[in-house]
């Protein structure tokens, strides 16, 4: 039981806590020679001055070898030899007004893919520009041996360029073919390889035309699309990774000999005794041995009211210990805990979901055979008309080059990149372009309640009806507690001379003013006479002064966002794990249907039933219990405060409190779907015009280069229209 005496100021909100040395060590990685490197996310860095202040302040800390802020990612990298220096650094950051939290070093994988793509782009750019320079000489009228030299040089540059810069395409095409599918990269690779071989042959026989410039600039254009696409996804992923981690890394274990050791959560076995401070999350399923507290279970089962914990209470992994320190005994290892059970359900749900094929790949299904048949038909036709083999092959390959899906390859990613940037600026992270395609198809929206429709923190109902004097006393008392209901009224605090302030976890706070004893907490405990008064009361010497009723605060713009979704013809519903009466009140206020007291299985079953009936479901949820539903839904969204597994499963993560994010994301998704269709129509229309010209044999390398660049520029310009698009009804 914890006690605060008067000389202590009210406790800080839990976010400012400095992690223990052991936790810092667990999240760091060794660089060799005893040097460790940690990365922390500092979301409030926003300008060069912040960078300077932080680096100057941290420069003075002993034992901290190096500290460097990355302003683009709002991250700080530190190298240290003693974990104490890191703790000091984290505390310093907090004092400067930049609360920081540790996060695990990201996988280097994505980084490497990006580096490979951008190197390929640089090489392709170098190759295509130089070949283009030489080719201009041919177009300008070089003849005879001069032309041959120019062609040979072009070929010499083209070969290594194609080998190096084409690797992402070769790999993807090969993967698709091996699994018996085609994608956009298959026709690209076939076109590139054939065009190169033909140009090589033409160079050797001193022919007037070679297509080296066309193949390299084709790769260059396509790589621009790939690089932008990758940048957008990486930026969203890294922003999501930077969010505070909600699962625990480890816990303070009490060994049988009385020593206290911090152990990573994987090493905690059933039967082990754990010491849990207020403000910490329960690492594994456990039972309370000693102590009393309030437990926030909203992230685990959606229940908004905190649960009182006392000896013998069973706790689930992932719930948050709010008010008092607890001694608990682990009843399951981490892999058998509630969290892992949810993870298994999510994997099963994900495997059960029908595989979504991107629009570009679906188009490629029709596109590739048509183009290849057209090339074959051109070849056969010219041969039948009496052309020699070389001329027929040239025409066939010209068909492949001119119809090569350059514009088609850019059509979809460009729109997605522009859309992702719009969303990013409004605090919505899009993890994958296909999420946008799926969001546009949605016809049903399912909301979780606690933490999704609501903020997951209580607010006072009818604050005006309470005497300000009394509210001031209650607020002053509440300032000593971390209970969410206390935080909701502590802003109303007035100066009171409280003495002997004691928090009784699970019950309330008690304090003395002169001769009077004030109690704020459960009615049954605060009032002397056993009454049937409900809720939270403030009492003086056992007599009631005021009753406080709380409700879970609705997210800003919830009503407008839901109204807008309904107006667009979507059906909206609440799926909640909370009690029926609580959910019913909220559903009535928002005028939507609901189902309450649902277990994770029930949510999953509801989504599967809707999917079986042909509906496309958007699931929005934050809790561990929403994880399987998020994974099973056609497309999913999670707020930034969601459980880690939910954030990872969701296609979109929104960072701001307002639910307007959903309306915006949906509007942009629909608009992008229209633009993608327009772009596909444009590129196909271009092919319809270009194909006859190619079949008739009028395509020279100059025509091919012009046509290709022009179609790409048109498609990109069309995608950029999304930047200026205004969401109807947005503020």
């Amino acid at each position: 039981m914890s006690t605060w005496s008067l000389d202590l100021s009210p406790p800080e909100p839990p976010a400012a806590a400095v992690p223990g040395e052991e936790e810092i060590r667990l999240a760091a990685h060794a660089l060799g020679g005893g040097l460790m490197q940690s990365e922390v996310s500092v979301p409030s860095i926003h300008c060069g001055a912040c960078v300077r202040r932080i680096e100057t302040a941290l420069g003075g800390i002993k034992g901290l070898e190096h500290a460097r802020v990355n302003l683009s990612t709002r991250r700080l990298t530190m190298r240290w030899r003693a974990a104490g220096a890191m703790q000091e650094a984290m505390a310093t950051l907090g004092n400067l007004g930049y609360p920081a939290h540790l996060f695990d070093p990201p996988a280097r994988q994505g980084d490497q893919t990006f580096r490979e793509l951008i190197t390929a782009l640089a090489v392709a750019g170098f190759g295509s520009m130089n070949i283009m320079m030489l080719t201009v000489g041919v177009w300008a009228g070089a003849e005879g041996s001069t032309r041959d030299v120019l062609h040979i040089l072009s070929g010499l540059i083209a070969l290594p360029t194609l080998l190096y810069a084409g690797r992402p395409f070769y790999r993807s095409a090969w993967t698709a073919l091996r699994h018996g599918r085609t994608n956009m990269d298959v026709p690209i690779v076939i076109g590139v390889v054939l065009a190169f071989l033909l140009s090589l042959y033409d160079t050797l026989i001193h022919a007037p035309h070679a297509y080296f410039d066309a193949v390299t600039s084709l790769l260059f254009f396509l790589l621009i699309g790939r690089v932008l696409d990758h940048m957008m996804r990486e930026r969203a992923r890294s922003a999501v990774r930077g969010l505070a981690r909600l699962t625990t890394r480890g816990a303070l274990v009490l060994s049988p000999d009385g020593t206290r050791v911090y152990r990573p959560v994987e090493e905690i076995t059933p039967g082990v005794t754990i010491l849990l401070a207020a403000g910490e999350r329960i690492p594994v399923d456990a039972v309370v041995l000693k102590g009393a507290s309030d437990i926030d279970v909203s992230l685990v089962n959606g229940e908004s009211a905190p649960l009182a914990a006392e000896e013998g209470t069973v706790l689930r992994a992932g719930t948050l210990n709010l008010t008092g320190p607890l001694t608990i005994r682990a009843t399951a290892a981490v892999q058998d805990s509630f969290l892992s059970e949810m993870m298994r359900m999510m994997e099963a749900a994900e495997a059960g979901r029908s595989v979504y094929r991107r629009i570009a790949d679906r188009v490629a299904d029709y596109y590739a055979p048509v183009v290849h048949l057209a090339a074959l038909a051109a070849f056969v036709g010219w041969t039948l008309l009496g052309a020699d083999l070389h001329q027929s092959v040239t025409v066939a390959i010209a068909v492949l080059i001119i119809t090569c899906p350059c514009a088609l390859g850019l059509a979809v990613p460009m729109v997605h990149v522009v859309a992702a940037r719009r969303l990013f600026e409004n605090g919505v992270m899009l993890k994958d372009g296909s999420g946008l395609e799926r969001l546009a198809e949605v016809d049903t929206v399912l909301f979780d309640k606690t933490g999704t429709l609501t903020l997951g923190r209580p607010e006072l109902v009818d604050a005006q009806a309470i005497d300000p004097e009394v509210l001031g006393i209650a607020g002053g008392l509440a300032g000593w507690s971390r209970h969410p209901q206390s935080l909701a009224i502590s802003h109303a605090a007035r100066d009171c001379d409280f003495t002997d302030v004691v928090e009784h976890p699970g019950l309330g706070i008690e304090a003395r003013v002169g001769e009077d004893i004030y109690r704020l907490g459960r009615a049954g405990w605060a009032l002397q006479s056993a009454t049937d008064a409900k809720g939270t009361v403030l009492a003086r010497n056992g007599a009631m002064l005021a009753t406080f009723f709380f409700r879970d605060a609705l997210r800003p713009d919830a009503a407008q966002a839901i109204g807008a979704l309904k107006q667009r013809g979507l059906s909206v519903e609440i799926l909640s794990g909370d009690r029926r009466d609580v959910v019913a009140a909220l559903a009535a206020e928002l005028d939507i249907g609901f189902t309450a007291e649902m277990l994770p299985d029930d949510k999953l079953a509801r989504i599967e039933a809707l999917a079986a009936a042909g509906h496309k479901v958007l699931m929005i949820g934050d809790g561990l219990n929403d994880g399987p539903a998020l994974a099973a839904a056609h497309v999913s969204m999670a707020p930034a405060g969601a459980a880690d597994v939910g954030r990872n499963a969701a296609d979109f993560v929104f960072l701001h409190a307002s639910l307007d994010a959903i309306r915006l994301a949906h509007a942009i998704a629909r608009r992008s779907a229209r633009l993608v269709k327009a772009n596909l129509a444009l590129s196909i229309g271009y092919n319809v015009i270009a194909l006859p010209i190619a079949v008739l044999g009028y395509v020279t390398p100059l025509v091919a280069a012009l046509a290709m660049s022009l179609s790409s520029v048109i498609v990109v310009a069309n995608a950029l229209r999304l930047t200026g698009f205004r969401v109807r009804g947005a503020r």
Partner: protein
Amino acid sequence: MSGFFYLIPISLLLGTGGLAVFLWSLKAKQYEDLEGAASRILFEDDVPLADAVSAEPNPHDRDE
């Protein structure tokens, strides 16, 4: 025209040089923080980037 052919290897060399410099700057992590670089130019006492130490975690070095 053939009198100017010596210009071609020169231009290719210059281009390759540019490409090499770009790849080097990429490897030296100069594009990791473009926003930060824009601000740091105004600092008088900026410290240079630390050497690119291998970021691979090495479990043997963890002193427990």
